[in-house]
């Protein structure tokens, strides 16, 4: 129930930011606002009917722990961009790519998606394939040693998800 309420509020906020028509005294804008609330309610109802809403993990905990992780990720993106830019502009093209396997112990799909995205955004690594049966990612890296940064990231994602990082 909490999830549906949260989805509804987020959708309404999204509508408000994108439309920007928030003057209740104006007839046309009032019409648009009512339309917005109705469509948000409809979308929430439909996603409840379809069972689309994500049912694992603690939403509040994820939301509270997400901002520090995002800040850390932003810094990692800057580092990664500098790394790639250096390789692009260096005259002798300093790349020695290889494929490595990165195991994971995350359980929920959201955490796996966050981890896969983070791998792609951070220095020298791109997620190629997710092997859910053997619990591992196939990661393409630009230079040997790129997988050293993956384990700390895995633990951070596990912390965001509230799963035990000790496994």
């Amino acid at each position: 129930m909490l999830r549906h309420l949260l989805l509804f509020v987020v959708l309404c906020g999204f509508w408000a930011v994108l439309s920007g028509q928030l003057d209740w005294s104006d007839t046309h804008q009032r019409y648009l606002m009512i339309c917005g609330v109705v469509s948000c309610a409809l979308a929430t109802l439909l996603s409840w009917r379809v069972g689309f809403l994500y049912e694992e993990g603690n939403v509040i905990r994820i939301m509270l722990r997400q901002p520090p992780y995002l800040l850390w990720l932003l810094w990692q993106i800057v580092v990664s961009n500098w790394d790639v830019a250096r390789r692009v502009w260096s005259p002798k093209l300093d790349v020695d790519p290889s494929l490595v396997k990165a195991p994971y112990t995350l359980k929920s799909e959201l955490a796996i998606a966050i981890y896969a995205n983070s791998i792609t955004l951070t220095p020298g690594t791109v997620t190629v394939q997710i092997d859910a049966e053997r619990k591992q990612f196939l990661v393409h890296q630009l230079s040997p040693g790129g997988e050293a940064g993956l384990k700390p990231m895995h633990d951070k994602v596990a912390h965001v998800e509230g799963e035990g990082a000790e496994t």
Partner: protein
Amino acid sequence: MQAFLDVLVWILLGLGSFFSITAAVGVLRFPDFYTRLHPAGKNDTLGVMLFCAAMLIECLKYDYSYLIAGRLVLMVLFMLMASPIACHAITQAAYVDGLRPWKKGEPRR
């Protein structure tokens, strides 16, 4: 204060251009499909983020248009999610199709 913000905007725009151009050059210079996706998937994201940061400062500085600022923030969040997902989808498609990654010492493709 005004001059400081102007300089900051110019620096952000310059860095954003630099990373976007780097992405283009990287796509041209790197030896194969997988390595080319590294600059395409990463540098573009940071480039767009820097552009958005510059525009954010610009629109808060002059007319305090919080709505446009909110849209810019949403754009950055969307890029942050969409760019790696697209990158991963393309890479996985190539991998499933059987494209072999380039190894050091081979001729570039």
